[in-house]
């Protein structure tokens, strides 16, 4: 019962956030100079043609009326229609979101798979040459821009060695895994570096903690000490960081999707902002907002599992 009420409260929080974001994104989009009619007609639109298109698109109605309609539609989970592509926004998002989700999920997993063992290695050999190399590597991948890493991987592993396709997307789930490996690796590198640095210092801190010394003195095997006591305690901050960075992973996906030619929501968002496709930008922002909120919820739950003190 207690858990249910916590969950209920969190869902309400998410709904409130989504509503706030809806108001914000609607206001921001309509405050931007330029509108869809102008963007569609480009630099040859006559005043008459712009006015006619305004009318056709319903943009000549008062802003509060348009806003109310927008809210009404959200309430019925209808995200409207793209003014440029003239298809429902839900369909546009449904076609692309799986690609972006798979890309970010693969990137998060790759980041964890690289960060955790390397952080352990570096922490256990603190100050040694392995530590120096690992820290150097993380410094390097943090300082390189995402598009640059992407291009280097494309030139070497794809076009050069032909191990991977040069961008694009596959026709099946298994093919997608193969096509998305390089872009996921690109995205993973900087996240992995952040996680690695954080996890390494937490591990070092925990390794020097009294309870670890006590556990070792108690005669517990090293594997058990490291696994049950050290990693568990050091992971809390790493998991928090990973959760916080999911939002930035989606941001990084915009660049990665462009460099690798992946039809995902990142590119859709950028294109739609440029063409002032209000419905698409608004709809997409809300969907991403819900997703990030859900990830935060999951992170909270996971933290509670790792550290019983948090759930109380």
């Amino acid at each position, binding site marked *: 019962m207690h858990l249910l009420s916590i969950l209920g409260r969190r869902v309400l929080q998410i709904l409130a956030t989504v509503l706030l974001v809806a108001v914000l994104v609607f206001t921001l989009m309509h405050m*931007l100079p330029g*509108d869809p009619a102008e963007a569609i007609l480009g630099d040859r639109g006559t005043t008459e043609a712009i006015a006619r298109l305004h009318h056709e698109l319903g943009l000549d109605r008062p802003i509060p009326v348009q806003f109310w309609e927008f809210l009404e539609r959200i309430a019925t989970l209808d995200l409207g229609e793209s003014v440029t592509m*003239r298809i429902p926004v839900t369909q546009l998002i449904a076609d692309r979101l799986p690609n972006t989700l798979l890309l970010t999920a693969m990137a998060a997993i790759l980041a964890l798979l690289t960060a955790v063992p390397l952080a352990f290695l570096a922490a256990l050999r603190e100050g040694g040459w392995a530590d120096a190399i690992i820290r150097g590597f993380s410094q390097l991948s943090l300082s390189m821009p995402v598009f640059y890493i992407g291009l280097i991987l*494309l030139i070497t592993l794809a*076009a050069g060695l032909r191990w991977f396709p040069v*961008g694009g997307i596959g026709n099946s789930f298994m093919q997608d895994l193969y096509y998305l490996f390089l872009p996921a690796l690109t995205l993973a590198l900087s996240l992995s570096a952040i996680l690695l640095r954080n996890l390494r210092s937490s591990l070092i801190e925990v390794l020097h903690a009294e309870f670890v010394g006590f556990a070792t003195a108690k005669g517990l095997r090293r594997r058990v000490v490291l696994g049950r006591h050290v990693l568990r305690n050091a992971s809390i901050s790493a998991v928090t960081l990973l959760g916080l960075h999911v939002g930035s992973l989606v941001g990084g996906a915009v660049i990665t999707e462009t460099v690798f*030619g992946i039809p995902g929501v990142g590119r859709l968002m950028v294109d739609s902002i440029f063409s002032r496709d209000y419905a698409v930008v608004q709809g997409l922002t809300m969907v991403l907002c819900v997703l990030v909120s859900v990830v935060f919820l999951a992170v909270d739950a996971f933290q509670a599992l790792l550290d019983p003190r948090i759930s109380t």
Partner: protein
Amino acid sequence: MHRRTFLTVTLLAAMSVPARAATRGGTLVYGRQTDCIYLDPVHTAQNADIWVSLNLYDTLTQPAHDGKSVVPGLAASWEVNQDGKTMTFKLRPNLKFADGSPLTADDVKWSLERAADKATGGEFQFLLASIGGVDAPDDGTVIIRLKRPDPAMLQALATFNAGIVPSKLIMAEPGATLDDKSKSFAQHPVGSGPFTLKSWNRNSEMVLTRNPHYWKSGADGQPLPYLDNVRYVIVPDDATRILKLKAGEIDAAEFIPYSRVAELKADPRLNMVLFPAAQVNYFTLNNRPTLKDGTKNPLNDVRVRQALNHATDKQALIQVVTYGIGTSEQSFMPASTPLSFGNGPLYTYDLNKAKALLAQSDWAKGFEITLYTIAGNADDVAKATALQQMWAPLGVRLKVQQMESATRLAHYNGADFQMLTSLWTNDINDPNEITSLFCYYPTIQNRHSGWDDPVIDKLFMDSQQELDPAKRAAQYKEIQERYFAAAPIIFGYEVPYPVAMAKKVKDFVQIPLGNNIFAGTYLAS
């Protein structure tokens, strides 16, 4: 009734038909920068759609590959009566849409009337605005009645928005209104062009497959096209697109950056082609006496505009921005435009002349101009920095402000700017579109410059119904000379369309308007 025959089927011989034997079959994979948005010819407004359109939707007349004339398309021949207001087209026999249903004069009537009507004709309706009505006396004859004689009508009928659609199929689509039906139709379009849409995974790839009912025959006497499929793959990043081409994953790549043309030309496996484009790069100037904020505008003075033009080293711009690929503008309209008039580069670089002109004006001591560029556009950065240096000796300080394109467009439409980097591409092989926007004031105050020449306005109105080609050419010569003298813009340069292809790709054409023509393309074995 006295009749004049403009063109007959004999012109078919003039069409580019390759002499060597073409291989049939295969799929050409073409790397595109941007995907199509909407595939109904009358609602086609973006280049990405326009460039594909003619492959899907055939037209009564077709643009010649050099952009200078038209050749017969769905219409085998046509006649224009003496007052120039009635055009009679004879359709080819047994025309069919890609789904096998017959294409009749009724479809042509329906398509053209929809495209010519302001309420239903979309953004490019103005190209067909002179159409008063269309009659279909029998299945094979189409009569177009014009409100006024229109010398550009044959070219307008070859333009994408005059594409013929199957009226029965559109009307059978779900939806209450014509607009709803069009929306549904555009998801799975059917036309009578050489190809038809097979599949479309937005922002990823679009596959066109050969239309088995296409009327035109190849060099081997069999129906075109040679290719089984054209697969457009969307690769927005220039560097990735080139990598894909080099890795053999795609057969052709468009929008090769100018900086890499020389490198790809040297690649023995590739064919780097620069297709002439009806495209000009120039700078839009606000010519009004005062700017939106009330300050006095030096660009209102013709001597200042001429001085800036003389102080602009076009050759240097061409070197810096296009790596030597561009050519100097000879008129405000692209050289491939019919009736474009040019006597060599305009306002050749002459700093002394520029200084002398400026000294005669009220701005001899120099001034500051603000140039709005598109944020993140490398060409714009190069243009702006080059101009800053070129104009500094005149005492002209160029302030550069980067803007996201839709924001800049709002400034442009509100005439709230002083100077812009600009690019223009023709949509029709006729000077009327660019002229109506650049120098016929009522359309959009001459690209929102505020500059006006009533003599040009009158010449343009006359030229719009002048059927005598020599007289029309003379009118356009005068328009271009007057425009040149007034210098309402900073003249720039023209650039071609750079497309890199694997050596096996033969006879692909991108015409000056940009349309990708795959009808005669084949893959050499």
